[in-house]
């Protein structure tokens, strides 16, 4: 069967019932989505399936035959961070980073779907995602910022070889 991940088409050899998470990580070597629990309880494995956020540890690969998957790697690169990624950097919304991939993909779907900066709405949309480090408030701030279309000057927070941008903004 065939799967497109971040715009690249792949022929999949894994068995049809293999969870999408394991196809991505083990067969395709795409390690952005994480194996936090392998039972849908934590959200670290969330990817976008045809734009919708889903727990990849619970999706049998047969169900995404011909589908389009977006992982964190497909949101943006260090040279060109997407607004959600910029927001997470600017608002220090990641500590250990293990939940970050799932959080941002849920946030991406939320913002793309017209989500507002309302705290409760954000909490509800990201409600399936566990973070053990941050206490969630900076994550919610980051999502709110992305929803508002804030612009970010990342020179103070993302200084490095790959990051020279000075402004960001929503699409």
């Amino acid at each position, binding site marked *: 069967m065939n799967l497109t991940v971040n715009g690249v088409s792949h022929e999949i050899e894994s068995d049809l019932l293999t969870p999408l998470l394991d196809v991505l*990580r083990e067969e395709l070597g795409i390690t952005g989505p994480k194996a936090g629990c*392998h039972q849908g309880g934590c959200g670290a494995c969330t990817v976008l399936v045809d734009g919708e956020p889903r727990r990849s540890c619970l999706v049998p690969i047969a169900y995404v035959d011909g589908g389009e998957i977006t992982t964190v790697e497909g949101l943006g690169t260090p040279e060109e961070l997407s607004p959600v990624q910029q927001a997470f950097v600017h608002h220090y919304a990641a500590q250990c*980073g293990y939940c970050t991939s799932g959080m941002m993909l849920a946030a991406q779907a939320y913002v793309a779907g017209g989500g507002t900066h309302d705290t409760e709405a954000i909490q509800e949309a990201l409600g399936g995602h566990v973070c*053990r480090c941050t206490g969630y408030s900076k994550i919610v701030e980051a999502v709110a910022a992305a929803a508002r279309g804030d612009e970010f000057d990342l020179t103070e927070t993302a200084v490095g070889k790959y990051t020279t941008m000075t402004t960001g903004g929503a699409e």
Partner: protein
Amino acid sequence: MKVVGARIPRYDGVAHVTGRTTYVDDVRIPGTLWAKALRSPHHHAGITKLDTRPAEEMPGVHAVITWEDVPHLVYGHLEALGIPADEPLLAKDEVRYKGQPIALVAAENEELAVEAVSRIEIEFEERPALLDVRKAFDEDAPEIHKEGNWYRHFENEMDRRQIRKGDIAKAFEQADTIVQGVYRPAAIEHAPLETQVCQVVPEANGRLTIYSCTQALYFSMGVIAAHLQVPLNKLKVVGGTTGGGFGGKVDTATETMCCLLAMKSGKPVKWRWTREEEFLCSSTRAPWHMEIADAVTKDGWILGRKMLTLHDAGAYSRFSPYGLTKHSFHHTGAYTIPNLEFDGYVVYTNRVPTTAMRGFGVTSVSFATETHMSRVADVLGVDPIEIRLKNANRIGDTSPNGIVYTDPSTVSTIQTIAEAIGHELPADYRTMTSEPRSGEWLPEHLVAQTANPEDH
């Protein structure tokens, strides 16, 4: 201050948001075998039969290890601090907690590894389990640790962490009331998003490259070297990238066993715990049992405190004596109580060994002290914020273990809290400072407080 309050880059921020941070589970080395553990299904049992040959003979299985493969089986994490070693890397002859690792297999994929574990022949003879710290002291309690049911190697081979300060009998005589409380916080699982995981590569030059999620890289290196009986320069530990630890990734829980599998198979090996293993078998913050009795005056002075702590170490010592020691030094919290009788025990139970977690040893006693302070205020009918200010540490006061406070911030912190919550304080409490006690803040019982308490 150049950094505090400033916006500075997170060196791994961009990597986190682009999925480029390489955690241990993300390391990809061709030919890596999957490890799985055979774990004890019993809280406490003797092992009467262990035969790994059916697993070893399975096609696709490249190595099986048991205690016999470990060059130095019993090594204590804190032997350097005087805590004797008591825990075998892999169970030998007996198991003392449900989930204790007995054997590990390394196979070509996870499916084969699980199957191989199920083929190991093992038989147990169940023994009575001790699961309640309070029962450890009973005459008829099962003996579950070779040294008895509680740790006996504090200084001078004392079987408890003991603090004696001032004259507790006099304090209790002089008290208007004794206020008692029992506090029993339960175990807490760290539950990091990244479960315990390790990958080890046996290099052609005889070294081992160890991809570890440990929070304590050099510490873990020492533990691995001690078990393997190899010099440190044989180990190359690649670490520093952890998906959350909070104290639960200091136990070097996976690395040594992966090294043994890698050495025995000659191939790279990965061991990744499932979330179920993480919840059921990984070390937790300890449960505590604390009993406090404060001798208090009707106007809210705490004259003395008697305290008994039972710390549930689980099946083995690990870091528990150290945690209890810290606990004992802080058992009066932010308050000065000059007459003390503290006894703390590290008690063994047939539970998963407990370990560090943020504020190791002290969060338990902070919880107990603060709750008890509120209880005292309630019993006396005294304002709960005023009673805290009254008894708050000042410059010149001493801690339970005799440290003189030079710059305590209790008074200003509590005053700030009072203001923030709109709690009106009387004038003398509003103008209180942390300066050495005098006047109304120096009652007779504090004049004589000793700076050199007898403690062990």
